[in-house]
């Protein structure tokens, strides 16, 4: 086996992957933060951030520096260890789930044969992190935010998983790579439009995006479960949220929109990754668009919509798909 220096190649690969993933998580956070503020300005007929850099492009960098420099305050009477741990609990799972996302036919850290289950299982940690953050803050708004977030997350996970299972029935595999390869003739979004819509709505709820942003409804709960977190700890929650959005969209692209496939571009080597990113960021644009267009729903409306409409429709869709696949 060929070795680079004295490091075993597998270890080198792991370290490189970790570095690339973490760098990407931070860059994605910066980019999405800028896009969100700029687009919000556009939708509300104002210019958005303009001062720092050309068109305000360096605004997020300035904000990041500000956040790093801020004092980190731990509320009295709350557990110090848990308070310090909560942001990392939120941040680690999103970094880990990157392992199985196929950015292009060659650019993937590891293709597990149960990649989809892996992502879903690791995502379950997010809820634990939210609960811990809400609990240790020792603050009623934070606690309300956490309780809402979990009630919402548990409810919307069901239609989300049911809609993903329909695609698994079509591809006969949990591997993310196989999902993309099975869409070489026709994208799954054309075969499963209902599942795609249900998945996208449930994804909005899972990532706490408006109109389902009740866990962090700023007019009711100040900032929800991360009210008490300041400085770098807040930015970890912020990054986790934006990376989660990226994940929800990249799963949608991988499962429904053909992943990296697309007409070849002049830069042959990178055309897969470019198509993938393009599709993901179009979906992210739609997410941001929805956030600044629709008002927030009430909590009973949110749960009713999930249990009375999304879940039965998703179940029916799954049943019909299973019948069609078997017959």
């Amino acid at each position, binding site marked *: 086996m060929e070795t680079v220096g004295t490091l*075993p190649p*597998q*270890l080198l690969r792991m370290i490189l992957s970790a570095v690339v993933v973490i760098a990407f998580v931070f860059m994605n956070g910066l980019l999405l933060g800028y896009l969100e503020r700029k687009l919000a300005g556009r939708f509300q007929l104002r210019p958005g951030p303009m001062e720092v850099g050309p068109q305000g492009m360096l605004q997020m960098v300035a904000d990041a520096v500000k956040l790093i420099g801020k004092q980190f305050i731990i509320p009295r009477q709350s*557990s110090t260890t*848990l308070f310090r741990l909560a942001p990392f609990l939120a941040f680690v799972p999103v970094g880990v789930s990157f392992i199985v996302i196929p950015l292009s036919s060659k650019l993937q850290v590891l293709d*597990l*044969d*149960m990649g989809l*289950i*892996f992502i*879903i*299982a*690791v*995502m*379950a*940690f997010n*809820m*634990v992190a939210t*609960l*811990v953050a*809400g*609990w240790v803050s020792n603050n009623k708004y934070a*606690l309300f935010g*956490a*309780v809402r977030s*979990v*009630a919402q997350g*548990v409810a919307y996970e069901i239609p989300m998983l049911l809609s993903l299972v329909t695609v698994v029935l079509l591809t006969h595999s*949990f591997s993310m790579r196989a999902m993309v390869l099975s869409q070489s003739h026709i994208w799954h979004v054309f075969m499963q439009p209902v599942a795609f819509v249900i998945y996208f709505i449930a994804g909005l709820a899972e990532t706490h995006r408006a109109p389902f942003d009740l866990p962090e409804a700023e007019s009711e709960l100040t900032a929800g479960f991360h009210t008490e977190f300041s400085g770098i700890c807040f930015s970890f929650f912020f990054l986790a949220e934006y990376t989660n959005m990226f994940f929800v969209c990249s799963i949608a692209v991988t499962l429904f929109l053909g992943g990296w496939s697309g007409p070849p571009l002049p830069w042959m080597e990178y055309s897969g990754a470019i198509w993938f990113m393009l599709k993901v960021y179009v979906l992210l644009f739609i997410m941001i668009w929805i956030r600044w267009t629709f008002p927030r729903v009430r909590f009973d409306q949110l749960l009713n919509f999930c249990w009375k409409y999304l879940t039965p429709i998703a179940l029916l869709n799954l049943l019909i798909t299973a019948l069609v696949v078997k017959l």
Partner: protein
Amino acid sequence: MSFYRYLAEGLFFGFIVCIFAGAFISLRARQLMNSVLGLAISLLGVAGLFYHLGSPFLALMELLINIGVVCVVIAFGIMVGPKPDQAAEKRPPPKRNRMLAAGACLAASALLLWTVLNTPWNPAIARIGDFTIRHLGESLLHQFCLPFELISILLLVAIIGALIIARIGRYGARE
């Protein structure tokens, strides 16, 4: 390849430490919430052991169901429920409770020990069958179909029971 072997062995002992540390935190915690988190750490170790034993699927299910659902539901219950009395949490538990707890622990460990000692263990090489998703699915729906279905009936009964209790709680006082 010895490097990876050492890494795997190290991970194995890491998981064992994880399980015991989680159990210890869970037992020693004064607050219920810390207890639940201890349980989560312990289950994380168990998931690691499953992975080490060559069944990533079971490891992921352990994460998804036991940490993602069971721990979250317990923590949710603690949050929604009434705030426990601070003074009562500091007081040492009554003698009867201690005896009961010790009895339960001893009975469970005796049962486990009895099973461990009475099982004819196959060495790793002679182990039959694989733990891939296909194999697990087939054995669940052919060989172990009845227990599998019975578990779902048990869950259904639990859900209906919870619904009935919740209804009585909401409307019971008015009638």
